[in-house]
């Protein structure tokens, strides 16, 4: 068989390059902080969620069949929320998610179902807790390969995972009784047994409200923001101090815990499940719900689950239970249509509609002022956030940043060849050189975005050579990217909150519960972000998704984000690229403000030579990976060697 030549398939770089991502629903409002009034609202909803089904059950309006269908829809809603955390927020594809529900259900059954061997059975609550724990643990294990795999390749692993659970573990004798399945008895409180589906529905709805609250807390905390950043661009996330590995595993664990809970609720609803209940077709159906609902939108995915419940119930009443098959068929066709035409799903369509209405009522979209140059914003001058070492404003003796012999090579090519440079405190140092000279590679080696093959990097005497990017960010390096490192589908304020990730000092559990230090710290971050927005003169755009701003405005927001945690060193990668000439003048003013009024130290890559000559105190010139000049800007620029490098040299 003549081999068809193996082919480079750039579009799906196996391990690193993401194979693209699904379109996500960019929410406009940043999540509301957890104030007491919000708590009361949730309490109210919880009361209604519990009392309504019981009342309707009593009146006979909600008979067992209707309650069963609504119960299933509610459990699916919890499952949809869990998949939404993983795929919608953190962008990790999971096509085998129902297996995690199975883990929850079987774990709960192990504790709550009386069997011949151990007739004593623990109450429902233990089952739910065990299910949540087991779901989280197994999801954590599933998350480990996800650290290296992305997009399609992760999808393949999750599908096989689903298969292994259904074909092997869920039918093994120690977990279940072969294909016969297991029993999940209804909860009993004192003498009252939740036999009636309407009563059990109250339990499911109550837990749905709790999960919704947890999800809301998550979105309003640094967890949600970190997940969105990881989905948008892992390098950018690391530059804001996010430990991508830890937060990815956290996303899997939280999602898995919610899935385990959903599995227990689902299992106890039907009181009897077997391995077939959690097979691949169910996982794909859950995916359909989440994508149709609108990836990334809490309300969207729950609405999709409710829609399924209503349809399944309506058709069931009208045409008998066979009709459920057609609901699945309809869902599948809707999935294809959604992905093709409305990738942001129901939520997206809803938002676009409300936005159009909003548009008509208010004047035009937030556009840049006529003359193209926004009000001259000041640089963000904020006191150093609590918890960070006080900024070194004294006349430091050594250089703020010392780079020694950094070498980076890709394959045979030496991108950066033993480069050493010093950045003295409170100075603006420029780094120029023709295309492909290795400037950005050197930048990434300093900021930790890539690991150099040799050389050291020291900031204020602290050796950061082995530190990963997020540690260097926390150590006081703020940076921007050539292609604007921001979560573009989130608002300006959200990005400024995201930028303060490494100073958000509270734990994951506090974030999820919305208690402990979380509310206070979040409040502090919010005020700090508001001050930064005011300083930048962007009040009008506070809630505007960054994607809707002009290129120049996005660049200013990005610089604001780099400054919001008052870093010692600010690294800017071609800030003037793509800026209109007027904006470039503005940029020069602001760069000088950083140095003179904010005592910041700046390392600047730039192509705009006039800007460099105007602003920089010192200048390094890089060509073909090695330094060819260093000194005062006017002197360096005039050197023949520099011009030679720049113009590509005379033709031999």
């Amino acid at each position, binding site marked *: 068989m003549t081999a068809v*030549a*193996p*082919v*480079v398939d750039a579009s799906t770089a196996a391990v690193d390059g993401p194979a693209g991502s699904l379109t996500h629903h960019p929410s406009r409002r940043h999540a509301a902080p957890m104030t007491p009034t919000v708590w009361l609202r949730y309490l109210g909803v919880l009361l209604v969620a519990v009392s309504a089904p019981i009342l309707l059950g009593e009146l006979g309006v909600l008979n067992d069949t209707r309650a069963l269908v609504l119960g299933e829809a509610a459990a699916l809603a919890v499952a949809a929320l869990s998949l939404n955390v993983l795929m919608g927020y953190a962008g990790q594809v999971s096509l085998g998610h129902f297996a995690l529900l199975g883990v929850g259900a079987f774990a709960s059954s192990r504790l709550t179902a009386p069997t011949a061997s151990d007739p004593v059975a623990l109450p429902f609550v233990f089952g739910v807790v065990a299910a949540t724990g087991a779901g989280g643990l197994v999801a954590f294990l599933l998350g480990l390969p996800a650290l290296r795999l992305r997009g399609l390749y992760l999808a393949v692993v999750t599908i096989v995972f689903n298969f292994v659970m259904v074909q092997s573990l869920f039918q093994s004798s120690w977990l279940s009784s072969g294909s016969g399945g297991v029993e999940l008895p209804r909860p009993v409180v004192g003498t009252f047994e939740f036999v009636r589906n309407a009563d059990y529905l109250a339990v499911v709805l109550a837990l749905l409200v709790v999960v919704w609250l947890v999800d809301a807390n998550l979105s309003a905390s640094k967890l949600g923001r970190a997940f969105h950043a990881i989905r948008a661009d892992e390098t950018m996330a690391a530059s804001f101090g996010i430990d991508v590995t830890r937060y990815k595993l956290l996303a899997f664990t939280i999602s898995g815990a919610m899935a385990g809970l959903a599995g227990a609720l689902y299992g106890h609803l039907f009181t009897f499940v077997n391995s077939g209940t959690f097979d691949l077709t169910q996982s794909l159906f859950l995916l359909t719900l989440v994508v149709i609902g609108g990836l990334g939108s809490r309300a969207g995915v729950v609405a999709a689950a409710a829609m399924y419940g209503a349809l399944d119930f309506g058709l069931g009443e009208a045409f008998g239970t066979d009709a459920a098959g057609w609901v699945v068929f309809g869902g599948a066709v809707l999935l294809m249509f959604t992905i093709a035409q409305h990738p942001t799903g129901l939520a997206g369509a809803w938002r676009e509609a409300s936005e159009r209405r909003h548009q008509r009522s208010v004047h035009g979209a937030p556009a840049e002022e006529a003359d193209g140059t926004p009000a001259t914003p000041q640089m963000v001058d904020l006191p150093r956030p609590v918890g960070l070492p006080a900024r070194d404003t004294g006349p430091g003796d050594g250089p703020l940043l010392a780079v020694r012999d950094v070498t980076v090579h890709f394959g045979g090519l030496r991108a950066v060849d033993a480069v050493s440079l010093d950045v003295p405190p409170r100075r603006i140092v420029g780094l120029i050189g*023709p*295309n*492909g000279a290795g400037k950005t590679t050197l930048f990434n080696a300093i900021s930790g975005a890539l690991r150099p093959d040799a050389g050291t990097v020291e900031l204020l005497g602290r050796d950061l050579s082995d530190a990963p990017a997020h540690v260097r960010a926390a150590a006081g390096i703020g940076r921007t990217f050539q292609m604007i490192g921001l979560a573009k589908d989130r608002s300006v304020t959200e990005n400024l909150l995201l930028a303060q990730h490494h100073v958000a000092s509270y734990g994951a559990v506090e974030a999820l519960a919305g208690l402990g230090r979380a509310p206070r710290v979040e409040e502090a971050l919010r005020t700090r972000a508001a001050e930064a927005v005011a300083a930048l003169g962007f009040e009008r755009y506070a809630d505007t998704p960054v*994607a*809707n*701003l*002009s*290129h120049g405005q996005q660049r200013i927001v990005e610089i604001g984000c780099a400054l919001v945690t008052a870093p010692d060193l600010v690294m800017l990668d071609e800030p003037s*690229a*793509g800026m*209109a*000439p007027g904006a470039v003048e503005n940029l020069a003013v602001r760069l000088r403000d950083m140095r003179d009024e904010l005592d910041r130290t700046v390392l600047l890559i730039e*192509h*705009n*030579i*006039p800007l460099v*000559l105007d602003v920089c105190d010192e200048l390094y010139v890089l060509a073909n990976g090695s330094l060819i000049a260093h000194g005062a800007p*006017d002197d360096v*620029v*005039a050197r*023949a060697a*520099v*011009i*030679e490098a*720049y*113009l*590509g*040299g*005379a*033709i*031999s």
Partner: protein
Amino acid sequence: MTTPLLEVTDLTAGFGSSQVLHGVTFSVAEGEIAGVFGLNGAGKSVTMKTIAGLVPAWSGRITFAGQDITGRSVEERVALGMGHVPQGRQVFPALTVDENLRLGAYTSRRRDRSGYAARLDEVFARFPILAERRSQAAGTMSGGQQASLAVARALINGPRLILVDEPSAGLSPSVVGELFAILEQVAATGVTMVLVEQNISFGLRLAHRAHLLQSGTVVHSGPVADLDQQRLAEHLGVGRMLGASTGTALAARRGPSRSPARSQATAKERS
């Protein structure tokens, strides 16, 4: 002046919300070599991609060989006689030299397959290195060899116009010299070329007319001959920096007097 082979009027284009081209206008006569120069981010590549059809134009008009091709697909423009040496060469790495060339002649082979053999021999004669490695996978060849394959791939289709996008990018200085010789050969055949180049002195040595691009608009168009160092520096926004060395490049240019008119003559003989 004969009607221009390629005419671009008030072209605007960009990506997503950020606009890159703010109204580009220039035209290229048959047989002429037009250089499009500008610093990084001036919009050179976007101009080429919009002319090629890869990037949709927001507004403005592009006419080629007398036809308005603003809305036409990439494939149709190639069939009309537009050849491309894309940025970064973009040869097909896993296909052999022979196969790359055969794909290059895709539209002409569909019209008449008979002429292909002759054109292939002509290309191999012009690029002996390619003849020697004809069955080698393109991806395993050096930068310079890939550059010549990319040029040959465009030539073999018998195009009326070739768009050459930053051919020297990423090549070591020594190979740039080789590439210059190749492009000189192509220019000698009288085919019309639009050359985009970051390496300005390289571009100036080849082009008859230069169009200077800054922040998405053409700030100056004119024959290379009457470009002097001062106006060039000013237009390119490179200011003081471009002191000495461009001067020498221009002087070298003026040596062998090459006006566009003369190369037009050769173009007529060939067709």
